[in-house]
């Protein structure tokens, strides 16, 4: 067993978990934050993306123990009360989701992408989200949502 001390969405947690617990399992099963999804479990789909110390990371690619001491933000932690984060709002307004399975990961990846460069071209958005797979939307409205959010976050 390993003791894992982390801060998730501003709240401190400490749990003893088996050494081989994946970070995504820790988030979903130990902490009960099921907004972060598991699509593949093998680092391909991006449904499990969370922010670790401000960087987007696929939570199925690392162990909970490796995240010990870090600050994590999940999809549950980006809205400000009732007010959605500009990226969530843009996905809502531009119909950037259908079934919503990929959405938490998409939103978390897109936030980091836009945080690095608010003047993204369509090509850069498509390339930046290459690690996130959506089976529903054909990506068109996702790209549109990210562009709208980038515009909003740039003001």
């Amino acid at each position, binding site marked *: 067993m390993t003791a894992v001390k982390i801060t998730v969405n501003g709240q401190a947690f400490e749990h003893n978990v088996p050494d081989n617990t994946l970070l995504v399992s820790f988030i979903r099963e130990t902490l009960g*934050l*099921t*907004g*972060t*999804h*598991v699509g593949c479990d093998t680092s391909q789909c991006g449904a499990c993306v969370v922010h670790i110390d401000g960087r987007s990371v696929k939570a199925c690619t690392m162990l909970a123990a490796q995240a010990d001491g870090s600050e994590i933000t*999940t*999809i*549950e932690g980006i*809205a400000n009360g009732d007010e*959605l984060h500009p990226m*969530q709002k843009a*996905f*809502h*307004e*531009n*119909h950037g*989701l259908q079934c*919503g*399975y990929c*959405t*938490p990961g998409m*939103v978390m990846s897109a936030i980091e992408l836009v945080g690095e460069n608010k003047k993204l*071209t*369509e090509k850069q958005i498509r390339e930046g989200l290459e690690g996130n797979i959506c089976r529903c939307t054909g990506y068109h409205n996702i*790209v*549109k949502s990210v*562009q709208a959010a980038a*515009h909003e976050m740039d003001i």
Partner: protein
Amino acid sequence: MRWISKMSESAIKYGIGALDRRIENRKVLIGECRHTDEVNRKVQLLAYSLHPNVAHNGTAKAALKIGVKEI
């Protein structure tokens, strides 16, 4: 370059195929939606479908051995 729709503003808002802001979007966007994988009742019926990738009944036999009932 920003993505620009070829549809007019009014067509986007009100026409056929207009984007609809679904009420369930919010739940999904804030991480509160539930998927079947998250339903875990104490007495819950689980069904697995086993499909061999070769024409062979070995998979079916193995499944029977580990207590799976043939349906």
